[in-house]
């Protein structure tokens, strides 16, 4: 990319450098949900039209963007900035679970949507948070994993297909 910009578009390169520099200096974490933001509270948490009864829990800020862009979800988020991984020394404290517990303890919250990845670590993180939800009397739901819509079965890897099979639903 650097060569391309040097050869053809130095202006764009400078604009990119300026916005990257601004981002590096000005962007921090939302004090409520840990999403990237340039103010104290991120736009989603600050939006009064958002449904405060639901919290969608994801591993990364990019996951927030993905859910925002592709689903009708209008609740709030909590970004873990990773997943539980004892082998890497990452426990509940590193994921800000204390703050999440406070959020789940609020009366208005009734559902936690666990949208961590279907990896071993992501699943373990979801299970751990589901236990916390149970203590707080919050309904925990897990997003479905399986065959991509528009995909063909023969090209789906065996782990995903096995997962999709186990989670099959009644039709009609």
């Amino acid at each position: 990319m650097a060569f391309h910009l040097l050869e053809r578009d130095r202006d764009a390169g400078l604009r990119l450098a300026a916005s990257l520099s601004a981002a590096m200096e000005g962007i921090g974490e939302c004090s409520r949900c840990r999403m990237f933001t340039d103010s104290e509270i991120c736009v989603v948490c600050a939006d009064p039209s958002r449904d405060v009864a639901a919290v969608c829990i994801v591993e990364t800020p990019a996951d927030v963007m993905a859910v925002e862009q592709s689903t009708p979800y209008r609740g709030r988020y909590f970004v873990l900035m990773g997943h539980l991984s004892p082998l890497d020394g990452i426990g509940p404290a590193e994921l800000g679970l204390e703050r999440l517990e406070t959020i789940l303890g609020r009366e208005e919250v009734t559902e936690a949507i666990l949208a961590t990845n279907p990896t071993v670590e992501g699943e373990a993180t979801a299970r751990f948070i589901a236990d916390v939800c149970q203590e707080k009397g919050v309904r925990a739901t897990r997003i479905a994993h399986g065959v991509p819509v528009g995909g063909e079965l023969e090209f789906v890897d065996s782990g995903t297909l096995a997962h999709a099979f186990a989670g099959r639903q009644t039709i009609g």
Partner: protein
Amino acid sequence: MAVRKLRVEDFRCLGEVDVDPATGLNFFYGENASGKTSLLEALFVLGRGRSFRASRKDVLIRDGKDAARVIVRGEGHAGTFQAGLEISGGRAELRVNGEPASNVADVAERLPVEVIDPDVQDLVSGGPAERRRYLDWSVFHVEPSFLGAWRRYQRALRHRTALLRQGARGRELDPWEEEMELRARAIDEARQRALAGIVPLVRDFGSSLLDAEIRLAYRAGHGEDSSLGTQLAAGRERDAKMGQTVKGPHRADVHVEVFDRRARGRVSRGQQKLVAASMILGQHRYQAEATGETGVLLVDDVSAELDRGRVGRLLEALSSIPGQVWITALDRSDIGNLQPDRMFHVEQGKVTAVV
């Protein structure tokens, strides 16, 4: 599946060797240290990712050379494939059909190999790890989803052990133990299904090779009265003290029992070899029946540890099994009346087809 071409470069004592084997029975004869075993070992290392006689990879490179290579062109139901392995400086690089392969499974699923060599009785007399590996390779070839469950189990197991080492004893262990329980169920079931298929075939080979009934039974490595999760939760203190998780399918075993009407009690080394050979032959046949694809069976030094009568029975069994077989021996006379489809003479690292 059959190997149609094998090329070996600088592997152990072998320089540059090209072999065009027959799809059926191939026989290699030559003196000790001529390179027969190395030839079989090269093929095995490619198919399994490890040697059956060395744990380190760098010893596989020929003295004074930088790298060893093994390249196979094989032909199976799914068509032809090419697989290659390069070992240099303790590192192994795999390629399949001209593309780098990320792990051993990519080659192994195309090139199933089993070996009967003079140490095969370790399968009977050695520790449970040998027998677990034996069973797991069959499951791997027959049930593709097994590998995923196995990897997830291993990962959760390592996380649990790390947590115990960090001093955790409470609910932070729960999610990892739940994952282990979930995958253990899939692993145990798949192993039991495979073993149920293998058992009658091993029994048949056992009765024809040594007139004895061989019984195999799965031992899961954890109790059956309660779930694995409950047992793991109850064993946290003990596991922390021992620095390892002592219950679970990673501690499973296949119990081998030989009932011999004439010789109850201790089983001789020769008999052990035949028990182990029956197990391998049964596995080979099971995989062929369950997947419709036969593996390559490697038999190194066929007559070792066996008296003439027993060698005869083993050769008879080998002549009747489906698929490609590679047999080595010191001398042509060692295979008696067996009629190989192709015969090779191995001498000082050179392999020559004999017409």
